[in-house]
Structure formats: structure tokens, C-alpha cells
């Protein structure tokens, strides 16, 4: 049934730390590896070793450059004016993106067959592949690009939050988390219940100021992102050369050479 549950008992989801992600793509690969042999049909690739390889992936990493901007001043009380230039060094942010398991998931309600659904018990958004006709409307409805059609099976694929791992009692406890989280070498991905205010992930979101992607789309994503931390001041704008050229504190042999070559016999520190 493609009506959304009014409330879910849990809100299982991911918290992704944009500060620690190093963009290694390990989560992308492990996601593909686990899910191509896990829930539902395989994640097929077309022309995988050819000139134009494409395939279905449930987790992808984009890399963005963010440049602080300077704004012209506006008359008092009118805020800032137009962008007049950069106001600091650009920084690179690696940005993993998979299904956000939205509370108000438009991909579910647009589905004409009932293949797309959101689970009442834990909030996970899934596709029943036996009911999916591959019309692609759910992918149109998703603002985040979380759904991709499998070209071989003709059904829609999406992140299952590794439903076949997190409840799998055959696995050791430490492995009962999504493949992307388990594999991340930087500890940039966290899994837990975001409905529980005392869960590790909820505390993390609270402490670090976790945010939603595209809140204006009204989807109420469960997954949260943690912003990059403020940069350590590396002395932007200060001339390194002036400091490097100074021989002020040279002593010992180098100090003697400096004094000898400068043609001065004044004692150290007098310059």
C-alpha cells in the first residue's frame, strides 16, 4: 500500500559526517558488493568493461567545492547585498548520498502498483520488486536521486538500509549494520534509531548540528548530515615569505654565517 504510515515506531537511518568523509568510495563499493547478492535482484551493470559503462548503484559519492563569498554592504537594516567576490579559501567536501528514508516520502505515494512502501515498524522505505512495473515515476518523485532503475531486471532499486544485515542473527553483532557503515574506514557513517532522542546518532546530530538535505522539498528526511567543522586558522592572508626571510633568531653556526655575510659584527638580536 502506497499510503504512508502516519507514524513509525522507529526511524532507522544514517548520520553522515561531511567533516570526516575522505571520499574513498569504500562505502560505494561495499554497498554494491553486498546488495548485488542480497535483497532482491542483482545490481546489474551494462557494458561494464566497455567504453561506456553504466550500472545501478544505491550509494554514490559526489565531491563539491565550497567557496565562502563576500557580499557588498547594503544600507542599514537591509542585510547583505550582491556577491562581490570570494571571502576565503575554497574547500572540498566529499558528499556520500543514498536513500534518506524520508518520513514524507513522495517516492512511495506516487507508486501506482503498491510496490513502493514505508515500513511502519522501522521507517525503512522498500520496493517489492515482484510488484514493480518499472515505470520510473518514483525516481522522478525523489529529489535526491536515491532510486535507480536496474536496466537488466526492469525494476527500481534503492537502499534497503541493508535490511538483510541489520536484523540478521546469522551475522555477528558487530556486522548487523548497513554495509556502508561497517566498511567506512574514516568513521564518517553512523547507523541508528533517530526517533530515540537518546540514541548515539540522535546525540551526534544534536551536538554537531545535523541538518536535512533540501528541507524545502517537504520530504522530512530521516538521514541527517553533519556539517564540516570550522577550519583551523592557517594564517590566511599573512605573508609566509616575510617570516621565512627573517634571520632574527638565528644563532650558533648559522647565526655566525649570517652575521659574517651581512658584514655586521653587531651582536645577536640587535638587528
Amino acid at each position, binding site marked *: *500500500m*502506497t*499510503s504512508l504510515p502516519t507514524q513509525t515506531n522507529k526511524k532507522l537511518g544514517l548520520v553522515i559526517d561531511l567533516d570526516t568523509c575522505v571520499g574513498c568510495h569504500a562505502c*560505494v563499493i561495499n554497498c554494491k558488493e553486498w546488495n548485488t547478492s542480497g535483497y532482491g535482484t542483482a545490481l546489474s551493470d551494462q557494458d561494464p568493461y566497455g567504453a561506456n*559503462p*553504466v550500472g545501478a*548503484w544505491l550509494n*554514490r*559519492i*559526489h565531491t*563539491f*567545492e*565550497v*567557496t*565562502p*563569498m563576500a557580499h557588498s554592504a547594503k544600507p542599514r537594516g537591509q542585510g547583505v547585498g550582491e*556577491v562581490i567576490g570570494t571571502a576565503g579559501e*575554497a*574547500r*572540498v*567536501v566529499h*558528499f556520500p*548520498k543514498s536513500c534518506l528514508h524520508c518520513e514524507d516520502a*513522495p517516492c512511495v*505515494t*506516487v*507508486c*501506482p*502498483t*503498491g*510496490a513502493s512502501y514505508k515500513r511502519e515498524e522501522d521507517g525503512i522505505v522498500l520496493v517489492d520488486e515482484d*510488484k*514493480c*512495473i*518499472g*515505470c*520510473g*515515476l518514483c*525516481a*522522478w*518523485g*525523489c*529529489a535526491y*536521486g536515491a532510486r*535507480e*532503475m*536496474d536496466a537488466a531486471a*526492469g525494476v*527500481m532499486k534503492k537502499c534497503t538500509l541493508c535490511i538483510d544485515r541489520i536484523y540478521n542473527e546469522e551475522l555477528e553483532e558487530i556486522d548487523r549494520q548497513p554495509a556502508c557503515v561497517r566498511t567506512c574506514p574514516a568513521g564518517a557513517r553512523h547507523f541508528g534509531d533517530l526517533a530515540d532522542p537518546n540514541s548515539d546518532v540522535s546525540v551526534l546530530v544534536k551536538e554537531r548540528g545535523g*541538518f*536535512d*538535505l*533540501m*528541507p*524545502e*522539498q*517537504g520530504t522530512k528526511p530521516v538521514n541527517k*548530515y553533519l*556539517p*564540516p567543522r570550522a577550519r583551523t586558522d592557517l594564517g590566511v592572508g599573512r605573508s609566509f615569505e616575510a617570516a621565512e626571510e627573517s634571520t632574527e633568531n638565528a644563532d650558533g653556526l648559522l647565526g655566525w654565517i649570517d652575521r659574517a655575510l651581512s658584514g655586521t659584527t653587531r651582536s645577536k638580536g640587535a638587528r
Partner: protein
Amino acid sequence: MHPALSVILFTTLSGAGYGLAFVLALGHGNPGALSTKIAWFVALALIAIGLISSTFHLGNPQRAWRAFSQWRTSWLSREGVMAVLTFIPLTLLAAMSVFNDSFHIGLGYLGGIMCAITVYCTAMIYGSMRTVATWHTGWTAASYLAFSLTTGTAIYLTAFGPAAGSDSNVIWIWLAIVFIAIAWLIKYMWVRRGQAVGFGESTMESATGLGGIGKVRLLERPHMMGNYLTNEMAFRIARKHESKLWRIALVLGVILPIALFVLAIALPSANLFFSGVATLSLLAGVFLERWLFFATARHAVGLYYGGDEALVPAE
């Protein structure tokens, strides 16, 4: 958005079919005339061809029957349900005309209203998409309804009206001209809004949540090659030639049909020829309009692939 030929054929052909059925269902055309009988057949055939072609883009068309189940939330499902239900009064009316030379005005009004609702459902599949800001407006449904009525009217007056013993053909032609003007005026409002709205409220900054730091630019895509998302949602070609293509659509859909319809009134002896070419030109214009409806639409996911920068040809 990728303009799938099957969906363009479906929306234009079934739109014209519902428009023609609407005209017939309101009681135009003598039910005993052969021309009216053929018109009913053509209307139902256009609707059926459209519906069948819409299943061609499905990954698993053998399960298409399941699409009738989720009418509570899904406009696509509602559209499927309404399409099937609308066949009931339309087929009854067609059968009455073909076998009994008769017509029932109550059933006619019911069928006409259901035609309009079905076209509205088709339009709302797109109009309800918040992710595509260009589509997310009442103008989308208005333009689908207007083009459906306009093309249906043009087909009726050209191919069937005179022989069906309908009222003055000149009045029908003037009606078609007025419908053409209204439909394209609505389209103009849609295009003007669409070009201003772009990606809507969403930006690369809101998509990444990094706007607090500064201006966001895509440095690297997830993979070097395209993928389902970029092929489906970040269609490029139309953007480059957008204004040129809209001008061609205007010539085919407005200027030529109106000029030819006026000629048809002025030269009654060549009425059929001029009306016929006018209708064909109108259909070509609407077909191009529908292609542009998809091809120029910006989907929010494009923001993760560089926004408008990603939408211009890379070469």
C-alpha cells in the same frame, strides 16, 4: 527530463482522442451518420493506442494491471483507473451510434466529464511532481486540458463535422481558432513561469546543506560516465536549442493552423484541404510542445550533478 517517445505519443494521442470523444459525447454529429460512427471509432482508437504505447516504457509491462490498485495516493494509478472507467460510457455511446443510430444526452454528459477527468489525471502525474518545479503548477493541467480539447475539436471539424450533419462548418472553424489561441496562451503562461522558476526553491546550496559555508560547485561526479539519473533527469539537448524549438512549435501549432483555417473559411471549395493541413500542423506543433514539456524540465536531482552547468552540452 528525458522525453520518452512512448509517453509523448501517449499524452498527445490519447489527449486528442479524449478531446474528440468529448465533442462527440456532448451530442455533436448526427448519431446515424456514417461519419459520426467513424469518428467514435477513431476517438476510441486514439485513446487505446495512446494507452498501449504508454506501457512501452515500462520495465515490466506484464504487471501493468497492478497499476490500478493505488488510486488513493498515486495520480498515475488514478489515471489508469479513470481511463478504464471512461471506456464504459464512451463504448456505450459509440455502440448506440453504430448499431442503433441513437444517442443519450445523460450518458453523453457523463462520458464528457469523465474524459476531462482522465486528461486531468494524466496532467497531474506531472503537475504533482514537486521535484520538477517547472511542472509543479496549475498551468500544467490547464494546458493538457486545453490542448486535448483543441486537437479533438480540430480533428472533428476537419474529418467528420461536415459529413456528420453538424452545424455550420465556419462556426466550428472559428471555434477551433479560439481554442488554439486559448491553449497557446495558457502554454505561454506555463513557459514564462517555467523559465523564471528554474529549479524552484532548491539550490545546490540547499541540496548539499553547505550554503552556510559558501557557494557550492560540483568538483567531481560520483562516476566518470552517465547513469540512470543523469540520462533520465538531466536531459541536455533541448536546453541548447530551447528558444528556437519553441518558435518552431509556435509556427506549427499557432501561426500555420490559424492561417490555414482562415483560408479554409475564405475558400470554401478547398475547405477540406486547408482544414486538413491546419489540423496536421496543429498536431505536429502539440507533439513538439509535449516533447519540450519533458525535455526542458529541470529535476531537482540535477543540482547534485552541477545544476544548470551540467545541463548544457559538455562537448
